[in-house]
């Protein structure tokens, strides 16, 4: 019997109360210790909220991340943090990595934070909850970097994968994360050329095989069908699909032989609530197409909708999960 589980992909809307903590830290009205206490208190509250909604496959909401790249890129040698750049076609901006030298992961506190998220999830939801750590994927990193060193997108993608993500994933696996969520909007983004996409898939394939933990490859803002037969190379991963940007998804699942899929059934860029009946039909179609494990989730990080709307969408996912029990 195929399994259907509700899951949160990437970020949950960062509440303004968390932003106030950052602001008070910056203006020294909070000590670093008070800030950490406040921040982790908010993360704990989110984990509890998600757990109470029946979500057991989750991230920590990424409250300590500004976007999918920051602060991660600050823990990488060979990178300078640059100016603000638009995140694909959203009114959302990130500080872009400028690659100025040979890349390598230098930790410097990154893993400690992940460790804290893992223990918090265990503490609040117990050992059976599955904690996923989101990271930017190699192609998404490469295509959103200003490259002043490698000179070629294929080489840069490979360097991000081999020299940064591989060691990070290894460390995360040792720490006990249940899965690593590689965010790869560039895989399906129309402006990224086929050659770069091919290189991205090669690097991903390598990361998936040598990871030692479950890997999710989460695509969004573009049509999954763009990957064509190359999707077969991601078969061992959980593939995240944006149901609002992709066409012919079930045919793709069948043809690529995808067994584990994360269906982005609620739209993180729209306040309207989705039709529950349609969601049920889509899950059934995914199962009929050969999926053995179907995660029902948000289609993209949730930074783009207000928190009260995100909360309603989470409840919707939770109700959907119940209907398949």
């Amino acid at each position, binding site marked *: 019997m195929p399994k259907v589980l509700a899951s949160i992909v990437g970020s949950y*809307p*960062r509440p*303004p109360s968390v*932003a106030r903590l*950052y*602001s008070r830290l910056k203006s020294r009205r909070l000590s670093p210790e008070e800030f950490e206490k406040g921040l982790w208190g908010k993360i704990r509250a989110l984990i509890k909220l998600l757990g109470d909604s029946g979500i057991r496959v989750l991230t920590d909401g990424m409250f300590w991340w*500004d*976007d999918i790249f920051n602060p991660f890129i600050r823990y990488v040698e060979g990178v300078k943090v*640059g*100016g*603000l*750049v*638009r995140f694909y*076609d*959203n*009114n*959302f*901006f*990130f*500080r872009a990595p400028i690659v100025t030298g040979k890349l390598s992961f230098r930790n410097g506190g990154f893993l400690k934070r992940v460790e804290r998220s893992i223990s918090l999830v265990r503490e609040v939801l117990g050992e059976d909850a599955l904690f996923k750590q989101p990271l930017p994927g190699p192609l998404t990193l490469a295509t959103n970097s200003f490259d002043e060193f490698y000179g070629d997108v294929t080489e840069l993608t490979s360097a991000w994968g081999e020299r940064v993500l591989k060691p990070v994933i290894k460390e995360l696996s040792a720490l006990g994360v249940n899965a690593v969520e590689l965010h790869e909007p560039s895989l399906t983004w129309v402006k990224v050329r086929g050659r770069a996409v091919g290189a991205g898939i090669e690097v991903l394939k390598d990361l998936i095989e040598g990871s030692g933990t479950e890997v999710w490859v989460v695509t969004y803002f573009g049509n999954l069908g763009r990957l064509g037969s190359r999707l077969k190379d991601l078969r061992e991963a959980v593939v995240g699909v944006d149901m609002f940007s992709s066409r012919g998804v079930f045919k793709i699942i069948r043809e690529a032989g995808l067994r584990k899929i994360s269906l982005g059934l609620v739209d993180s860029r*729209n*306040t*309207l609530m989705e039709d529950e009946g349609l969601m049920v039909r889509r899950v059934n179609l995914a199962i009929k197409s050969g999926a053995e494990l179907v995660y029902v989730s948000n289609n993209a990080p949730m*930074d*783009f*909708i*207000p*928190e*009260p*709307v995100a909360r309603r969408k989470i409840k919707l996912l939770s109700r959907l999960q119940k209907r398949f029990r």
Partner: protein
Amino acid sequence: MSWVKVTLPALPTSVIGSYPRPKWLRDAIKAFRAGRLKEKHLREAFDDAVIAVLRDQEVAGIDIPSDGEMRRDEMVEYFAERIEGFKFYGPIRVWGNNYFRKPAVVGPLRRPKPMVLNEFLFLRRHARAKVVKVTITGPYTIADWSFNEYYGSKEDLAFELAKIINAEIKELEEAGATYVQVDEPALTTHPREMEWAVQAVNEAIKGVNIKVGLHVCYSDYRVLKPYFDELRVSQFALEFANRGFRDLRILKNLSKELGFGVIDVHNPRVESPEEVARAIEKVMKYVEPECLYVNPDCGLKLLPREVAREKLKAMVEGVKLVRRKLEARGLTEVELRRETTCG
């Protein structure tokens, strides 16, 4: 209103629009929201703040100031609060810890009364400058930065908004405004929508006979370039400092004025006048000085006020360095132009 000839110094300096609110204004807004300040006192605080930040700009030597958008919390929110048919669900993040309340369109849109006319009239009354700039968020950006729960498509929504903006700009013209800047930071976000997005902007300025600038920032200007001529504006105000003055090549063959962004508004480091001058000299390889205005990349509101002030001073000093060289070439002043071509 008939168009009167106005001359400005060569390389006129301006701002994009917003300026940091003084601390006491932020306190007054908080007090009002908490019910501790009467509305008439808040109005007075807004007026005083406009005068204060206008003086900051004048002291810095800005030729074309704005009112700093003192009365606006945010560039889309402000209009969504004044157009019937919008609803707010809560704030969303734009970057880092910066939020805006993204509105949702839940019914037919209607403008019950003018939205920025009083801002302009107050600014005009108090500014010493010959020309002031009034900013208004464009129809595409309001549509793109809203959730559409009512109209059949984003295109329908944008054109409905274009009608509203057009009526507003015409009222400004009638009241004596000579320079309106339409802010469209979202314009290039969805390249597939560019064709109709450009038409929506043109619809918003249709029949307007004053100077109209178009501000587009943090965008892929390669998407904008094919529409340079089609957009019926006289100036593009673009951001370049944030991107380290990359992409200047897109300005090749630009046949309009450029409002050149030389100040990074998201970095508290104050640029030196020499840096500003170097940037201007760089851009003059692509744009004739007769067609060049100088401004920060974007609104200054996220900076501490003293940093914004220093940045404007540095910008003006940098411009003066270049003006000296232009003077030697015989270029000392330019005319305020409303034509949609330049050079």
